[in-house]
């Protein structure tokens, strides 16, 4: 019965976007951070969010997994859908279970390396072998060889880059439908960062990925779609808007707007 339902779902849903944002605006205590974003984020592809600092990339990402609920004074307007469902009407926990998140700064739990991954599995009632899943997800982020002898030691003793890979492994272990990543490689060395790029390229066959990055080369290597956000000024306030969205080749080589061209060619105005 379950498989039947899944089949019906997959047939009708194969082409629907993972996220559909309609005129979405987000404000912190009345200060608009992002305004009027309308975009369809396709499923099973990697969408990169790029743009200058402060244009609201993290803000959007946090709203897509309902983490902004926790911040008092956040107002969201417009409509957000997750696979056709109204995201803002869903239970926050359901959203958290379907949409994984890797944060800008690594935030492992103050527990052992093993527990960092096992905890998420346990709270989600994972039925399989936890040991195997821990190993598999650590392998995926190329951390296994570095930590396999000290799985029981505290994750906070890892280096920043190792912590970030652990956080990615933690999200992967739960096999969510969508994984959001906020500058996942900003704390990594070039080699480790390249490994993550390769991982992301593999993962996008199975998952919908939305990745914020300041590294345009990385965006070019990994992205299918690119969303470029820009900052605007009105009455002394700065807020972000979606300036351009399209396939990676188009945004980088034939941008439709001058501001996109300037940004991807690293020109300031």
């Amino acid at each position: 019965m379950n498989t039947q339902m899944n089949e019906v779902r997959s047939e009708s849903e194969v082409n629907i976007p993972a996220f559909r944002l309609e005129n979405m605006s987000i404000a912190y205590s009345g200060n608009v951070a992002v305004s009027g974003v309308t975009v369809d984020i396709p499923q099973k592809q990697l969408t990169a969010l790029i743009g200058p600092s402060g244009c609201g990339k993290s803000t959007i990402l946090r709203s897509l997994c309902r983490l902004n609920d926790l911040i008092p004074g956040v107002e969201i307007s417009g409509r957000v859908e997750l696979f056709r469902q109204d995201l803002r009407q869903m239970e926050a926990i359901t959203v958290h279970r379907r949409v994984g998140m890797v944060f800008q700064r690594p935030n492992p739990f103050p527990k052992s390396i093993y527990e960092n991954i096992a905890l998420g599995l346990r709270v989600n009632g994972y039925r399989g072998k936890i040991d195997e899943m821990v190993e598999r997800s650590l392998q995926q982020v190329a951390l296994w060889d570095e930590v396999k002898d000290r799985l029981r030691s505290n994750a906070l003793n890892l280096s920043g880059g190792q912590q970030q890979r652990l956080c990615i492994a933690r999200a992967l272990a739960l096999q969510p439908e969508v994984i959001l990543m906020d500058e996942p490689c900003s704390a990594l060395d070039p080699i480790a960062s390249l490994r993550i790029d390769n991982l992301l390229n593999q993962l996008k066959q199975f998952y919908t990925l939305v990745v914020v990055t300041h590294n345009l080369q990385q965006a070019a290597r990994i992205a299918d779609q690119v969303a470029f956000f820009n900052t605007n000024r009105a009455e002394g306030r700065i807020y972000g808007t979606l300036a351009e969205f399209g396939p990676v080749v188009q945004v980088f080589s034939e941008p439709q707007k001058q501001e996109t061209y300037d940004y991807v060619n690293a020109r300031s105005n």
Partner: protein
Amino acid sequence: MTNTALSLPQIRKLIQRQNVFDQFVVLALLAAALSSVIVTAGILYILISESVSFFSQVPLGEFFNLVDPKWTPLFDDKNFAIITLISSTLVTTGVSVAIGIPMGTIIAIYLSEFATEQVREWVKPILELLAGVPSVVFGYFALQTVTPFMQRIVLGVQMFFAPGRDEFDYYQLPGFNMLSAGIVMGISIIPLISSISEDAMRAVPKQMREGSFAVGATRLQTSFNVVLPAAISGIIASYILGISRSLGQTMIVAVAAGTQPIYTWNPLDGAATISTFIVEVAKGDIEHGSLEYNTIFVAGLALVAMTLAMNLLGHYLSKRVREVY
């Protein structure tokens, strides 16, 4: 030359003056820190020197007598088995901890992880008020309110399980008992434990909680799996402060647990704790330098030793716990 720049000798002089000032400040800070060390050392010196003169008159075997312990230093037939006082100190502290630690921790978790800002604004001042209640008031609360209440409960429990007897044939909880004193001591340390634990939990970075929510954990799961372990050393510190406070608690036990130095481990009995004994003796007129006088200090030394052991245990525990996760 209207140059604002300083010449090299001028800069040297400035740095020198700065250095002298810095050194002065460092010395002042050091002196402040040393003063607490000196006071502690002074107290210890007095306790130990008086105890030395005590042990020159009382054999160690008598002091650590566990076989037939009695504590009767003010009688003609003198007995000095300290376990008599230690047992009641441990019993009242145990009851107090059994109340104060769970309640304090639950309140801390609630305030830090669940309560809205409005609820916190209400509850925190009430807790502060509780912390400000003088211990003698707590003592009479234990004696006048909690003890009668506990007496009815003890009676009710017996009547429930063995009905049919005359009311006075049942066991009666004595008017002075360590249970009531311990319960109220537990209530009195709730604000201490909850406020320190809450501070420790609120200091846990919010990114850590977000990481937990992002893997689909509930608030409760996040509190226990992420926030508690991250704040554990602060929480253990609050427990140790609470326990030390209970060990040394004087007024509540003196008022509600009685002043009879009886050797017992039963919380339903009344018995004098170490600090009860010290105030009792200090109230009476005993000769300076006499053996009775020395017993105050030897009892005080025992109390200090217990508190110290508590602190060492806590230190060890918080280190252990940190290594385990």
